[in-house]
């Protein structure tokens, strides 16, 4: 891994069209500015990982899972139709 030291206001250029700027340093937090072409998607790593995990998990579902969802949906629609007051989960 390439490791570079930069000060506030200084930048790093990656390839021809990606610029990474150090905007602010506050305690153990660093604010970064990223300029990149639209073909490059930028995500926080943990958000990217979470969405990827959700996608991979969701891809495992079977028709029985769908049936379960549909049953719950129909029950809850029925409840609303009957004007039953919604139960609030207790703390």
């Amino acid at each position, binding site marked *: 891994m390439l490791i570079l030291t930069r000060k506030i206001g200084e930048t790093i250029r990656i390839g021809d069209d990606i610029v990474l700027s150090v905007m602010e340093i506050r305690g153990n937090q660093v604010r970064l500015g990223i300029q990149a072409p639209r073909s490059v998607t930028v995500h*926080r790593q943990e*958000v990217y990982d979470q969405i*990827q995990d959700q996608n*991979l998990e*969701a891809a495992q579902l079977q028709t029985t899972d769908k049936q*379960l969802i549909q049953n719950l*949906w129909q029950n*809850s629609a029925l409840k609303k139709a009957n004007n039953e007051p919604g139960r609030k*989960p207790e703390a």
Partner: protein
Amino acid sequence: MKIQTTRFGELNIPEDRVIEIPDGVLGLPDSTSYILLEHDSEGTPFNWLQAVDNPDLAFIVMDPHLVVDGYTVQFDDDAVERFGTEKADDSFGMLAIVNVPREDPVKMTVNLRAPIVVQLQKRLGQQVVLPDDYYPIRHLLFPEAGDKEKAGKK
């Protein structure tokens, strides 16, 4: 055209209904052609988004507007250009991926943070990751389901 699926066997699908998702969905970049299967929704908003090129790959999806009133995805100019349209209009459809946790199935969730946005004329799609704090990745579909024990199990 005929496609193979593990869940539904061989299907004959109209070619002009295929949705191209050039980048795939996050974590599954290899499958880029999908078809929306609406055959078994039974009056509910849940459909399968089946990969055309991978028999095993399918997601349960739904329209996120049915979960949150006024659900909106902000399109910037870049995003509009990426989809190849002149302006953001009503010709976009949205599909949110539904998930069912193995350990507690009633706590099923829908991913409102990363909907698959489909340009309907070109049938061109992309999983768009919305900025933080807009909508959750795991939005409970049935918040009241956690209350089930009090309501009495069958």
